[in-house]
């Protein structure tokens, strides 16, 4: 039996088609990523799978239970971490956790034991009796995760679990996801962070404008565009280099500025290397590092979602 099975799900909001014919399955124990840009339909998909909204057409099953007709049975198996950290800011961390457990009818002894464990895991134990109003964003996020796990779900929905968090909170959350995976819990997570999907997911669906563009493991997705190679080059700080100039090099197909580096997409990395080394003295700048790289999940993503904004011809701000 699949943990999640969707068949031809569509969702309309008035004239807007938020989801079009979305079909996929998630096996039990799998960590499945839903990767897509803002407005792609990730949250809408989670709201349908958790029975908060009904699909306009199509069906979804959670461990065999139809989410529209057997909503309660389907939900008993789930934990849900919503996109916003929806905690009660007038209550303490402990009361929030206990409330979440009571909604799922976790018995008193069980919920107190589980609550204490989760507060340790998420590094909130020493603040458990404080009102959560004063919590930082990361603390609120961690508490939201703890609340999603307090009923020991078989299937956990995570809507952008780590978006906007610092390294420490991020690491805790990733660790927890990995641990869940080892314990056989199925995880469905949405993200627009490609690296997160690459690091945590067994399989990834790339969704754009409400349609699934591809579903596969991160490595297999990268293989599908193996032709995309790139040279990453950094110039001495202060050297004024325009992306346009690099794009003008004959073997460069595409230029992306990535932080203090440029990424030159090409089918011929050695050729580009030669061109760059010749270009540098002409432009009066010094190359301080060079790397060649295979395709990243980001390349797949950009290819599939047609995100052309950063392709050839984009100039840098500095």
């Amino acid at each position: 039996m699949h943990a999640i099975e969707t068949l031809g799900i569509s969702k309309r909001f008035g004239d807007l088609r938020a989801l079009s014919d979305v079909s996929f399955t998630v096996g039990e124990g799998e960590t499945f990523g839903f990767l897509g840009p803002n407005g792609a339909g990730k949250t809408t998909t989670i709201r349908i799978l958790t029975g908060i909204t009904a699909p306009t057409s199509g069906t979804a099953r959670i461990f065999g239970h139809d989410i529209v007709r057997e909503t309660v049975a389907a939900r008993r198996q789930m934990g849900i971490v919503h996109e916003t950290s929806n905690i009660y800011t007038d209550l303490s961390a402990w009361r929030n956790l206990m409330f979440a457990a009571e909604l799922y009818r976790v018995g008193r002894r069980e919920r107190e034991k589980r609550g204490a464990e989760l507060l340790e895991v998420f590094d909130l134990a020493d603040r458990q009796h404080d009102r959560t109003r004063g919590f930082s964003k990361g603390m609120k996020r961690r508490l939201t995760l703890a609340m999603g796990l307090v009923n020991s779900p078989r299937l956990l929905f995570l809507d952008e679990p780590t978006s906007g968090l610092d390294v420490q909170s991020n690491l805790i959350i990733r660790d927890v996801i990995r641990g869940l995976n080892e314990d056989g819990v199925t995880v469905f997570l949405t993200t627009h962070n490609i690296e997160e999907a690459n690091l945590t997911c067994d399989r990834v669906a790339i969704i754009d404008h409400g349609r699934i563009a591809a579903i596969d493991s991160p490595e297999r997705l990268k293989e599908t565009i193996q032709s995309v190679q790139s040279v990453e080059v950094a110039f001495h700080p202060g050297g004024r280099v325009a992306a346009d100039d690099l794009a003008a090099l004959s073997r460069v197909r595409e230029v992306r500025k990535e932080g203090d580096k440029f990424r030159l997409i090409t089918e011929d990395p050695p050729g580009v290397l030669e061109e760059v080394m010749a270009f540098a003295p002409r432009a009066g700048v010094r190359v301080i590092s060079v790397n060649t790289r295979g395709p990243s999940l980001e390349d797949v993503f950009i290819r599939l979602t047609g995100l052309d904004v950063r392709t050839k011809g984009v100039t840098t701000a500095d």
Partner: protein
Amino acid sequence: MEGWFGQVSTELAAAWAIAKKDILIWYLKPGIIVSGMLFPLFMFLAFAVGRPAEPTVLVPGLVAITILFSASSIEPVSIPIERRMNTFDRLLSAPISLHAVVLGESLSGFLYSIGIALVPLAAGLAVFRAGIVGPAFLVAGVVLTAFCFSTMGTLFAAYPTESPGDIMSMLNLVRLPLIFISGVFIPLSQLPSAGQFIALLSPLTYGSDLIRAGFTGEAHFGPAVDVGLLLVFILVFQFAANLLYRRFND
């Protein structure tokens, strides 16, 4: 049937958890106390004082409008704020039916208004020396009226807004006229016939009739009719709320 019984008790446990959460958060908020306690008091002063009225009209009237306002003073504030904070999604995605959510939300207003109603009741007994002759009528009247109007508050809060003011103004559009058309301070028998007809449509009519029966021993419609119609109103509000939460929940 173990499965059926299990689900009902799960729903009730979850409804109680929801109510407990609201009690912890809302009972001590100043805004709630003002609208639940002071508002009915001012209404009472405005309508009742200075008129040559019997304690057996004044005291039940004050108790009835106190319940009307206090029972529907929590959910119309708490639910839009839960929407704004997205905590409402937790309730909507819990493994319980919408009926349990509606019931849980109504429970906090219900218990609150029972507590608040004790104040005018005690004052009535002490100051006006009103005597209770039908305790069962009084208890049934207080409990059913409180439950009826707290469910009405939850029903109004179904309107999908994140601002409590929106719901409060809609609610007052209903609550204020109810005081006039329900024979609260003017006995039904003294209303003109058109007024008597309109009064039939108001749940407060039956609630205040039943509460007054607690002090006079007699109900205009008969206690069974009052109880029956209050139960009908409660069910209608409960199911309408269930429907609206589903409808607006997109």
